[in-house]
């Protein structure tokens, strides 16, 4: 479904992505992991067309995404920090994205709108919302159009535990419906619950890209944090 070939992207002298290649299938849920500044966000930006790679290609369902825009109708993106125009109301933001994505409007998924009770604060201006409430709006927008691919950047950060649970259930439901989920998080327990594979990046290079089950079996560790510690120790030696 998604074929990333030799992606390279530099900012000045720093290589944010260095010959990055990966193949991702529908039904996979991939955890993008790595230290701060390792290239996770740059990779996501390249996928979304927000940044243009210096070299390499991204093929989504057989077509290159470079310079294209139509493919984004198949993507739901939840940014790390969603900021919206100050004076626009919550309901208006949702209407706006709905109008922009009119073509897909017949197959709307309003599960999260209901679960987060968005209608209760839809008349509030965006600037009056707390960070967590904005995250909820971002989450609703990401899932609303039933996209084939979900990109979630730190989805549970800033959400209260109950809402985080709601969101996680939704991610799992989508994963079981054969969507491709790519998410970043620093919370191990979330990743363990939500993802099937781990893609670990350091300095723009893929350190490893493997299913969690395989990693667990190979290292003999039951917990994800122990597994990672084990793998990283092995790589350093």
């Amino acid at each position, binding site marked *: 479904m998604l074929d990333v070939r030799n992606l390279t992207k530099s900012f000045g002298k720093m290589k944010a992505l260095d010959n990055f290649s990966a193949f991702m299938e529908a039904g996979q849920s991939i955890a993008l992991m790595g230290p701060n500044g390792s290239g996770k966000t740059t990779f996501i930006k390249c996928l979304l067309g*927000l940044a243009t790679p210096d070299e390499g290609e991204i093929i989504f369902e057989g077509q290159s995404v470079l310079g294209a*825009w*139509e493919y984004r109708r198949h993507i739901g*993106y939840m940014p790390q920090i969603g900021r919206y125009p100050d*004076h626009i109301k919550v309901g208006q933001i949702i209407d706006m994205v709905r109008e*922009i994505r009119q073509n897909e409007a017949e197959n709307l998924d309003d599960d999260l709108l209901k679960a987060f009770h968005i209608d209760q604060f839809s008349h509030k201006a965006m600037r009056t919302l707390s960070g967590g409430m904005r995250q909820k709006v971002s989450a609703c927008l990401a899932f609303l159009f039933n996209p084939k691919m979900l990109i979630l950047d730190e989805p549970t950060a800033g959400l209260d535990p109950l809402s985080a649970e709601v969101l996680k259930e939704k991610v799992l439901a989508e994963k079981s419906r054969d969507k491709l989920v790519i998410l970043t998080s620093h919370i191990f327990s979330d990743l363990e619950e939500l993802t099937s594979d781990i893609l670990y990046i350091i300095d723009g290079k893929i350190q490893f890209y493997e299913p969690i089950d395989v990693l667990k079996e190979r290292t003999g560790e039951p917990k994800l944090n122990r597994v990672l510690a084990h793998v990283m120790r092995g790589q350093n030696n």
Partner: protein
Amino acid sequence: MLRLIKYILLDIIQNRMVIGYTLFLLAVSLGLFSLNDDPTKGLVSLLNIALIVTPLVSIVFSTIHFYNSSEFIEMMAAQPLRRSLIVRAEFWSLSLALVTAVVIGMGIPIALYASTSTGLALLAVTVVLTVVFVSLAMYASVRTRDKAKGIGGVLLLWFLFALLYDAFVLLFMFMFSDYPLEKAVLAMVALNPIDLARVTVLLQLDMAALMGYTGALFREFLGTVNGIIFASAVLTVWSAVPVVAAVNVFNRKDL
């Protein structure tokens, strides 16, 4: 694009700065017209204020708005939309909002006190200047990533067009005063949108005679239909070129 403009506009017109700007223009225009018994004098005073204030407010407000919308613009760019659409929608929304402020703030007083061809000319050039400076703001904010640098840059641009440029023209005229400069000065005036706007309105008044031989030459050229077509063409170029350049830069920009 209309759908996008609708929501961006909805955000802008609720901004206190735009409302304050409209009220300010309204207060100044009404004040100047009621202070002067002769509406033509009021128009000249208003011309001087409008040519300084509207470019400044247009360029600074647009730049600040663009920088403050950067995350929102990023979110739009992640939607199935053409990149160029986003900048164009921002440009049209900002232009529409600020032009509305001018039309309400200056248009109503002009209609009440000085509904002459000069009044209409003043309103028209102010509207065009607003669009020109929104366009310049788009280019400046797309080019620089840093907000402080961007705002500093547009202030410098405004300073250049509103004040420095005239100083250069005067210096030029002084240095080469032995030569016939009329055509050169005419060309220089045409290159600065604010000067061009000022001369176009002044020529509508009978005061051009006070400007000596140069004034007569201006009148001969800019006062004719061809001159007005020329002035409109130059101002159209000034409003279109920066925003087109901004779209080109933005299309290739990493957000």
